[in-house]
């Protein structure tokens, strides 16, 4: 199987090469602004720029890497004032302000290229108003990462439904541990919990309507989600004082075994492995079903490249976008030694890594309800902020629920007007 995939990759490589020979006339300067500032992503970005440069010797590539958090505020300035030719960003509603303001270039024409037939799974996330506004370069699954050794010690198995999840949790609490660690100082960590509880209680379509403002926050379905959440809170499933920790600061609890699991994206695996949890101690399960009548749906946030409308060298930028999604490039940049995430091109091969393989299988075959981006990418920024703050308050003071929902409803009326 591996050999077969390798052959395909080699085939794709030659095809890709053929395409680029055609477009060899690219020249001038290609300015890329990237938020891939952590060591591994940075190396990936630099490697991509280098390989693209080698394909187009007449093209000079200027790569600027900006700290990931700072990038989120700087992008507003450089898109309007000093636009690069290619810029990193995120999919779905997160790109809407820039699309609405006309700062991102419509790249539907790039998507017409046959190579994009293999990117059907992420096309929806890149589409607004019926057009595509960028290309994805990586995505990753969310789910429950748990301490397999603790589960084994207590004789527990991966839960198949919410009842089992709760009975597992009761046993873990019995043993003097907490079920889940959480760092809600980063508000978005609570967004992950809401996404899963709501998608499992009401389904993906309901969730999409809620984040799009078509369903009120005071709706009965939302209340049911919070009621399920409250069951976990009331049984003491989460670590104490989670409001004081960022997501990184919440990891030591699972490393030390004071908490048995964490609901997180695949990016949590690397720090947990570095902290000494090998594959015999760390395992993964899909968030179990709550309401058996709704189909399972997953969060899989997609990171992207865009062409600002103020770009100077759009020809080269479009060629770069195509280069990024080529199957062999996707295989390479997403492997365990690089990003350690999932390739967006269906013809790429997923690296031989336990979590990547499980995640890939889950997203491709066991997510019939659909794929969501993440709460703060699906909902408009202001709504996401207000709601995630409300989630945190709910986790500390569940009795305030009515007040919180009324507040969110008021905010929604203003934001989705």
């Amino acid at each position, binding site marked *: 199987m591996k050999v077969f995939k390798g052959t395909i990759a080699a085939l794709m490589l030659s095809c890709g090469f053929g395409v680029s020979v055609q477009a060899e006339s690219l020249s001038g300067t290609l300015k890329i602004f990237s938020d891939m500032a952590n060591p591994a992503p940075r190396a990936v970005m630099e490697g991509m720029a280098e390989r693209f440069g080698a394909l187009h010797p007449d093209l000079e590539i200027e790569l600027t890497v900006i700290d990931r*958090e700072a990038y*989120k*505020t700087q992008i*507003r300035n450089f*898109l*309007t004032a000093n636009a690069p030719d290619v810029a990193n960003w995120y999919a779905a509603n997160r790109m809407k*302000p*820039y699309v*609405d*303001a006309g*700062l991102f270039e419509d790249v539907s024409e790039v998507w017409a290229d046959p190579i994009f037939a293999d990117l059907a799974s992420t096309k929806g996330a890149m589409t607004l108003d019926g057009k595509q506004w960028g290309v994805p370069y990586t995505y990753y699954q969310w789910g429950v990462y748990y301490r397999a050794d603790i589960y084994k010690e207590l004789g527990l198995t991966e839960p198949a439904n919410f009842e089992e999840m709760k009975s597992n949790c009761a046993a873990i609490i019995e043993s003097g541990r907490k079920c889940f660690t959480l760092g*809600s*100082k980063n*508000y978005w960590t609570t967004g992950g919990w809401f996404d899963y509880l709501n998608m499992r209680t009401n389904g993906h379509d309901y969730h999409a309507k809620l984040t799009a403002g078509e369903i009120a926050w005071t709706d009965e379905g939302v209340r049911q989600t919070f009621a399920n959440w409250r069951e976990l809170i009331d049984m003491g499933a989460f670590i*104490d*004082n*989670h*409001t*004081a*920790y960022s997501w990184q600061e919440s990891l030591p609890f699972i490393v030390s075994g004071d908490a048995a699991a964490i609901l997180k994206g695949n990016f949590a695996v690397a720090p947990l492995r570095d902290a000494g949890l090998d594959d015999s101690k760390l395992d993964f399960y899909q968030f179990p079903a709550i309401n058996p009548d709704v189909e399972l749906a997953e969060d899989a946030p997609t990171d992207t490249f865009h062409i600002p409308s103020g770009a100077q060298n759009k020809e080269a930028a479009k060629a770069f976008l195509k280069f990024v999604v080529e199957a062999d490039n996707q295989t390479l940049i997403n492997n365990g030694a690089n990003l350690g995430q999932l390739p967006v091109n269906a013809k790429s091969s997923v690296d031989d890594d336990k979590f990547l393989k499980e995640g890939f299988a889950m997203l491709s075959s066991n997510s019939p309800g659909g794929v969501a981006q993440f709460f*703060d990418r699906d909902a408009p*920024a*202001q709504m*996401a*902020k207000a709601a995630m*703050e*409300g989630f*945190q*308050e709910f986790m*500390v003071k569940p009795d305030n629920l009515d007040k919180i929902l009324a*507040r969110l409803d008021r905010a929604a009326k*203003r934001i989705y007007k």
Partner: protein
Amino acid sequence: MPSSIKAATPPSWYKRNEIAVTPWLFLLPGVAFFLLYVIFPIFQSINVSFYDWDGLGEAEWIGLGNYEELYWDDAFYVSLRNNLIWLVLYLLAVPAGLFIALFLNQTVTGIRLYKSLFFFPFVISQVVVGLVFTWFYDPTFGLLNEFIGLFGLGPINVLGDERYVTYGIIAAGIWPQTAYCMILYLTGLNAVDPEQIEAARLDGAKGARLLWHVIIPQLKPATFIAFVVTIIGALRSFDLISIMTNGGPFGESRVLSFYMFEVALSEYGFRMGYGASIAVVLFLIMLCFIAYFLYSMYQDDKGGR
């Protein structure tokens, strides 16, 4: 000036008005930049506060809409309340600085070293102060909880509990601010007239009475500056909040300046108009103090002449 020379070569306009014009020429760069970077943005912010604007697209005129929304916004009142708490408690830095200054105002071996050690927190960055206190308060591993644990108390989750969080951050802020006030008072104490103290002692004054009636009145300029910098420091308390809690838990540690940043400029903020209206409210509060300070400086100037 002899009139014969004047008749021979009439002096240039500049020569004739040199005394009046020169000071303005010297002031010109400063005034120009002050107008450009301080005064102009004030009016610009006031203008923006009447619009609904995401910073990218078209701005839409909504009149007092932003202010009306502020009136209904719970988060705004939380921020305002926290600002008042900051103002009141932060002023503790002034007497604390005075007492440390009095304590350090003596000649023993190595006093320079002690003075520098006390001044140290003001020299290190606010970001570092914030981080140090965040670790100090950590509910699981923090020094504070280890300590009160000795007495069977705790653990307290200072930064994660909405009841304590603002006080926790203020305590962190007072640490460097006390050092600042201390330096102001140390220089002030150098200027205290020894003869007056001697005279007071001859009259039998000592301890608290000597301090209150003889020393503190002479420290008035230092006290004035200490109040000014502390009040301004309290109103612009931003970096500590950003580092220690990022406004959390659920927005309970926000102050106006942080809230303004959050709605207008942070990761999820796209509301320039609303942010500007918060800035205007903050400006009006500051204006009260600024007006008072300017007035009292003006009075001092008049009295001095």
